[in-house]
């Protein structure tokens, strides 16, 4: 059985645990926003790629974020299958790396990819009005790296623990 077949056989578990993981991740990120720890909103960032209307962008972003949660769940599953280990701490480690990658590699290049994000080279324009995240998303608050890594580690831990409980690798 190759990895793809393995993932297909575990589809139900991936859907359930990635959904749960995404809910927890979203709660941590929104909770951080509400408590004033960070102004980062990943669903809003994703949604504004497709719409400049705040309401539509938030709804679209939440939808894409849920789908993204599932796709990343598949990747986590394949990585754990490849390693032959599935438990909460390997999941948390993967999640932490995922969060770090997002902060260090994805967010800094986002101004060049996002159609509505200003860059620090050109400043805001008619379409590009969103504040760029800066290195490690620090523009959105100095606790942003902490809350992002924590949220993703929680996401990974839930997937790892869930996969360990539901399937045999």
């Amino acid at each position: 059985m190759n990895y793809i077949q393995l993932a297909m056989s575990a589809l139900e578990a991936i859907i359930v645990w990635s959904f749960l993981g995404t809910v927890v991740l979203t709660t941590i990120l929104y909770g951080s926003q509400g408590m004033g720890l960070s102004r980062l909103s990943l669903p809003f960032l994703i949604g504004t790629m497709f719409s400049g209307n705040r309401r539509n962008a938030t709804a679209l972003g939440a939808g894409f974020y849920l789908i993204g949660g599932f796709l990343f769940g598949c990747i986590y599953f394949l990585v754990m299958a490849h390693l032959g280990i599935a438990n909460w701490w390997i999941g948390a480690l993967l999640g932490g790396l995922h969060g770090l990658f997002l902060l260090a590699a994805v967010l800094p290049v986002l101004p060049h990819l996002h159609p509505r994000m200003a860059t620090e080279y050109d400043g805001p324009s008619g379409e590009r009005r969103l504040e760029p995240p800066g290195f490690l998303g620090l523009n959105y608050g100095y606790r942003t790296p902490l809350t992002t890594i924590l949220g993703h580690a929680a996401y990974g831990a839930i997937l790892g623990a869930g996969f360990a409980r539901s399937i045999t690798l």
Partner: protein
Amino acid sequence: METEFDGAAIATAAPASDYPPISSYALIGDCRTSALVSRDGSIDWLCLPHFSGPSVFAALLDRRRGGHFSIRPATPYQVERAYIDDTPILRTRFRTETGVLALTDLMPIPPHDHTADMLQPQREILRCVEAIDGEVDVVVRYEPRPNYGRRRIQLRKRGACGWACADRSELYMLHGDVPLTATDNGTALHGRVRLRRGEKRYFSLTYTKSDIGIMMPLAAEADTRLRDTQRFWEDWASKCTYRGPHRSAVIRSMLTLKLLTYQLSGAVVAAATTSLPEWIGGERNWDYRYCWLRDASLTLGAMVDLGFHLEGSAFLAWLLHATRLSQPTLRVLYDVYGETHLYEEPLDHFEGYRRSRPVRIGNGAQSQLQLDAYGSVVLAAFDYVEHGGRLDSVEQRLLRRIGEMVCRCWRQPDHGIWEIRGAARHYTYSKLMCWVALDRLLRLQTHGHLQLPVERFASERDAIRDAIETRGFSQTLGAYSAAFDESIPDASLLLMARYGFKPGTDERIRATFDCVERTLSRGDLVYRYPTEIDGIDGREGAFVIASFWAVDYLVRAGHARAADERFRRLLARANDVGLYGEEIDPANGETLGNFPQAFSHVGVIAAANCLAVAASRGEY
């Protein structure tokens, strides 16, 4: 001027002369919050995200610690300024030896069709500076001091995006096309640029709370925002149905009321500021950035009389629904969301306007009993229905419960319309408003808008009238007194004729006016009461709305010509852009108290409407 803003540190007090006169400020706003701009081009007051939020600029209350954002010529200048047509867009013109500079200040309002697909900041202040003749050196100074100057902040450069000032979940982004440099301690920015005729520069200050920041483009895009905002206000003002005399003053008053209306709930705050003193150096310094129910009936009347039914309807909805948590008991004041926990707190680190301390936030009056609030809310609902509005079943039930509350409580002493601290009294105005509440409820019943226990309400209404006539009329004064069984003149009793308690020609009403003129008036200005009765040290100025109530009364007494003359004199007491504060010092004409004051502008509108009716009847 370097600023120490750590709340614990003590900075040297600014000389009193550093503070511009209160009347030198003009208001800009977006119906969510507002800012005060001085004649020197300095934004000295701005609270975010709404009127009663913490200040980010408060140089009005402390020149050194409060924070400001100024743009002005580097050399001596003369100033002229005006709002652009019927808008709150402020244009300040600085005339220097070398040229003329125009500064335009506004809080943009995006058009509805535009907002559908463009990201907008939560709040924005847009400032455009242009040399319109010769050449002028311009200096810019930006000192944000969030949370009433209680936060230690650091300004950070974000490349071409401008400068960021982050305070916990809040972000203030300043984006401009004049290079700015941070001061050594990184807490302020300054810059200087020479503009030649036709050259224009822009600054956009945006605010975001708990979300990713939005920055706004400059140049042509900024000009578009200016045009859109101008169109919004001109369209709005064109809906005014007032066709009487002094129309421009009435429009300016209505624009000011609109600026003090919180768009998201319909609430109208009493003033844009806190703790501007009612006497320089005095302690009558209160926070007026909340909504007083006692102002409700006159405010709603002003709106619907001028044809602004949408605003009137939103305000009534706010009145009846925001007060739900406390109903049928009504508190004295609420914030824009209906919150009543507005505990008073002094800001000891602020020296106060011209050292008038304490500076207070929150308002201790929220714990008082003011019976007049019931009459005011009922009268607002009555005016709304009179102008074609309809009450839903929830509102009908609430009004009935208010009536029952009045029947139970009108015999209690309270703190009265003037919120006099200390022992409660039987204030005549409070009893008058209880009478108004029951009288208007019974009229609504007669017209089929409510179902009430008529006999009980009618007998209590008559009992209140008897009490006012027997205990509220002072033989010593020869007039109605501020409180039962006492002999204190009170300007609020000038409203007895307006509220239909008796006609303006009635002997006792006329005697009350004469008494107020004799004891509380200084020319065209009227004090609200003799200050010694409130137990607070010091003096206060004459009360602007009370001065307009005298105009209202004179019309009702059949002296329309005298009323018009008095009205003209009062109009001349507005500042250069047509704004009034709470009070005026009769000795020197200086504006005192919080600024601008919604109630004063309500007075302008009410008196003008009265005069318009008299003019239409050919009474003068």
